[in-house]
């Protein structure tokens, strides 16, 4: 048994069977820790299955706000015999294996270096309940009650969460309280507790929230004024539209007429979903679709049309493991290149890359302004880890003075005042032309939208010069876009570091933690978190200012590195790959090890690494 206690710093994993109601109990567990003022990071590790296969819920507790995934399980709650062998193996030496001991544990599950805590969960439920469904559901609540005793979760916090969950179904409150108590009492009678891994109330959460990225994205779309959502179901993006539907039902039904100030269409495929978004935004409504990698593949043709014909569109890509069906319930950042250059021909697409629910909300709301101002598709690159897991996040904010920026849209009055309207005429010198919405003016401002070449007045032409002028203007617009998109976040070290790390999206948490680990080893790194594409000047400056940059990403082919090299014409030797692509969220241990190894290995070869770089 571990001698000294570890307060607010451990990883606990629940091994459950998919479809047995464990999710709500596990969520309650994580929320209770959050309510105790302690940073917490839960992750669903689930199969592509509805019922029966193993599923895990992994919760990292860390009061330093290191909320990326950490390898090694300190406590395992195993209620799934199917995965028990694997579960026993995944616990760290000295850790705790908490299991249902209604039947004795087979020899093969015994490791000498683990502590075993058996709770007769099945037996208790058989004694207490007659309905098989109740037995299944309350088993989950009982183990949460047991954990309350084992790791010091405040019981009144759990009870309060039960009260909130069953508000309106008061009959269920008492039985759930009772189930919590059953687990608690069993531990109290049979084990010394709390365990060395335990919780202690803190005041670190302040006004932060615990929220899923996909729901935050959906809420951002509501706030950003989206009225049309067209989509095709695909994991892990489905919950974006599900949440949009829920929020819309609450906030977008006209109280007087009872009519919907929104429309949601489940399309026949992702092609159609993208077509609907383009049609709606062409016609002046704000519209979006949400999908994942396979859907982005299907949307390529339409994204090229929207780029070339300059039609606003918003696409949320919640990335998962590719290629093809890949591992559909595992996370990855591997759609960077397909999104950045979506479609055939010379295309460049605007990317927004959030790292938190707050940014999911902000970027989703902002994406409609950007798409309309820039008259081009905007792709929000989220991922499964961010989208489908709860994250501790800054509270969401909205200014009452916020007004939607519709960009250069001409009204009937404006059309009367100007001379000949040129849809693709660069009047302002920023590469962004003026557009009109159908139905604006009886005789002025109509034009033909097409994916084929045309002149500045939207007249079809196969004149190579006119085509080239248009393509060049689109490049000019691309330059303008750089000043519109969110700037990167910079983390400067105190020592004037000559090396940096570059990361984006959900690699953020583990990268920041790795940076601290490395600093303790004496390796100081500056850091930059990309938040958008095209890359703004700050990104070029950061790369320019450092001799070596570790590019951290969650894909096999170092796609962001490729994009940086291509766009900024960086010497490839300067950008070192730090990759993770097993479908699990990247860890700080992995990042710091890779960087540390690289530096030591290179130093062995060349005593003065920085001199070598300067000379090259």
């Amino acid at each position, binding site marked *: 048994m571990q001698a000294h206690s570890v307060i607010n710093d451990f990883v606990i994993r629940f091994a459950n069977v998919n479809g047995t109601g464990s999710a709500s109990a596990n969520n309650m567990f994580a929320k209770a820790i959050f309510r105790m003022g302690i940073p917490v990071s839960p992750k669903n590790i689930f199969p592509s299955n509805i019922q029966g296969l193993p599923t895990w819920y992994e919760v990292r507790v860390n009061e330093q706000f290191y909320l990326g995934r950490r390898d090694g399980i300190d406590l395992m709650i195993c209620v799934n015999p199917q995965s028990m062998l694997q579960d026993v193996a995944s616990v760290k030496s000295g850790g705790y294996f908490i299991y249902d001991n209604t039947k004795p544990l087979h020899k093969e599950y015994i490791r000498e270096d683990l502590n075993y805590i058996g709770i007769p969960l099945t037996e208790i439920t058989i004694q207490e309940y007659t309905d098989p469904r109740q037995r299944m559901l309350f088993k989950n609540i009982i183990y949460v009650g047991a954990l309350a005793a084992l790791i010091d979760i405040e019981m009144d916090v759990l009870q309060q969460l039960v009260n909130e969950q069953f508000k309106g179904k008061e009959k269920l409150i008492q039985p759930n309280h009772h189930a919590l108590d059953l687990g608690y009492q069993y531990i109290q009678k049979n084990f010394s507790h709390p365990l060395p891994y335990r919780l202690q109330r803190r005041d670190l959460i302040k006004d932060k929230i615990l929220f899923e990225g996909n729901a935050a994205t959906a809420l951002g779309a509501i*706030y950003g004024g989206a009225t049309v959502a067209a989509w095709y179901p695909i994991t892990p993006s489905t919950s974006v539209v599900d949440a949009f539907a829920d929020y819309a039902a609450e906030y977008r039904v006209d109280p007087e*007429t009872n009519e919907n100030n929104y429309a949601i269409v489940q399309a026949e495929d992702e092609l159609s979903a993208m077509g609907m978004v*383009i*049609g709606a935004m062409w016609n002046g409504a704000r519209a979006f679709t949400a999908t994942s990698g396979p859907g982005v593949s299907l949307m390529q043709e339409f994204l090229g049309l929207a780029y070339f014909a300059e039609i606003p569109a918003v696409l949320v890509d919640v990335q998962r493991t590719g290629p093809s069906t890949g591992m559909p319930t595992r996370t990855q950042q591997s759609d960077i290149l397909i999104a950045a250059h979506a479609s055939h021909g010379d295309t460049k697409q605007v990317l927004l890359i959030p790292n938190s629910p707050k940014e999911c909300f902000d970027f989703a709301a902002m994406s409609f302004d950007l798409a309309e101002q820039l008259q081009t598709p905007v792709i929000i690159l989220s991922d499964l880890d961010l989208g489908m897991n709860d994250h501790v996040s800054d509270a969401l904010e909205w200014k009452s003075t916020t007004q939607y920026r519709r960009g250069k849209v001409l009204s009937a009055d404006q059309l009367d005042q100007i001379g000949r309207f040129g849809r693709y005429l660069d009047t302002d010198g920023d590469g962004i032309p003026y557009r009109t919405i159908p139905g604006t003016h009886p005789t002025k401002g109509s034009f033909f939208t097409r994916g084929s070449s045309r002149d500045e007045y939207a007249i079809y032409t196969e004149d190579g010069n006119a085509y080239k002028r248009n393509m060049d203007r689109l490049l000019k617009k691309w330059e303008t876009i750089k000043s519109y998109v969110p700037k990167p976040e910079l983390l400067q070290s105190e020592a004037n570091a000559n090396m940096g790390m570059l990361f984006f999206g959900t690699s953020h948490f583990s990268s920041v933690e790795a940076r601290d680990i490395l600093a303790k080893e004496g390796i100081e790194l500056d850091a930059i978190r990309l938040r958008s594409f095209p890359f703004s000047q700050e990104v070029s400056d950061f790369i320019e200012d450092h001799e070596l940059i570790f590019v951290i990403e969650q894909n096999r082919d170092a796609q962001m590195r490729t994009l940086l090299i291509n766009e900024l014409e960086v010497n490839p030797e300067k950008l070192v790959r730090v990759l993770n692509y097993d479908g699990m969220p990247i860890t700080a241990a992995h990042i710091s090890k890779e960087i540390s190894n690289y530096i030591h290995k290179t130093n062995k070869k060349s005593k003065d690494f920085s001199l070598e770089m300067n000379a090259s």
Partner: protein
Amino acid sequence: MSYIKPSFRHPELPVNTLGYKRKDYEGSLSTLCAGCGHDSISGALIQACFELNIEPHRLAKLSGIGCSSKTPTYFLGNSHGFNSVHGRMPSVATGANLANRDLIYLGVSGDGDTASIGMGQFVHLIRRNLNITYIVMNNGCYGLTKGQDSATADKGSKSKAGSTNLFQNIDLPGLAMELGAGFVARSFSGDKVQLIPLIKAALAHPGFALIDVISPCVTFNNNVGSTKSYDYVRQHVDATATVDFVPHAAEIKTTYEAGSNKLVSMHDGSLIKLNKLQADWDPTNRDSAVHALHEANSKGEILTGLIYINEESQDLHQLLNTSKKPLNTLSEKQLCPGPEALMDINQGLR
């Protein structure tokens, strides 16, 4: 190129009740082959919109890719147009219609665009009953890529090069009937007398309205042995009825012979007057419409005219209960729940 359009028009040409001349409904010069059936359909569309007193800017015309999909450039020059991607016009039109239910939507497609690459979108457009007039300019071949058979080419039909089509054709009105379309018609580009009132009725229909217009390709599919040639179609055409469209509020002057006539009232108060040529056919009865189609088919005839109309059609907006005010006119105030609601949402996440 079909013809050179004179810019001069007689000053005393008639105007419609909006004060527009027919010229105000025209578009740019057609670049299709001289004699192309599609140009006749464009002409019929111009005439129908002129006579219906449609404000040109209140109509949006959308198309896919192909010869047919080029035509929206050649009519309604004061309307916004959208030449989208091959086979995907239905989805773009759906989005556009969702954004603004107050415009009139005209979708123009071809047999390749609809019956092959765009079949999925066509089918689901019908399923959703989008309020759109969907015209297929059907010539049984791929004109822009020089005459390959399309999926609507009849089995046994001969191409210009002499090869015989081996495959079953897809009959679009038959398919639309199976899918529950609320307005199904077929016509022939060479029969404006029939086509113009059908277009008017389709535009007035509050939901999906298909007009499959056989439109011979003079360059690649007008040869002997082709079942989509002018001669073949003229010889095999068999109409359900002669059609007259009586717009809302117009006075009905004609008297009808009992038995052979049928009046169909439209949602907006307009009337379709049919002088029935098919004995046991009722355009408001699905079974009899399907029967009429099958019967004509087995006799080797091309059944034209109005085939079916559902007077109770409910379009996508009605099904979704969307706001009567077009979604693209809603303001921040109506769309954004504001900072106070957000504070409550935050509180619920703590």
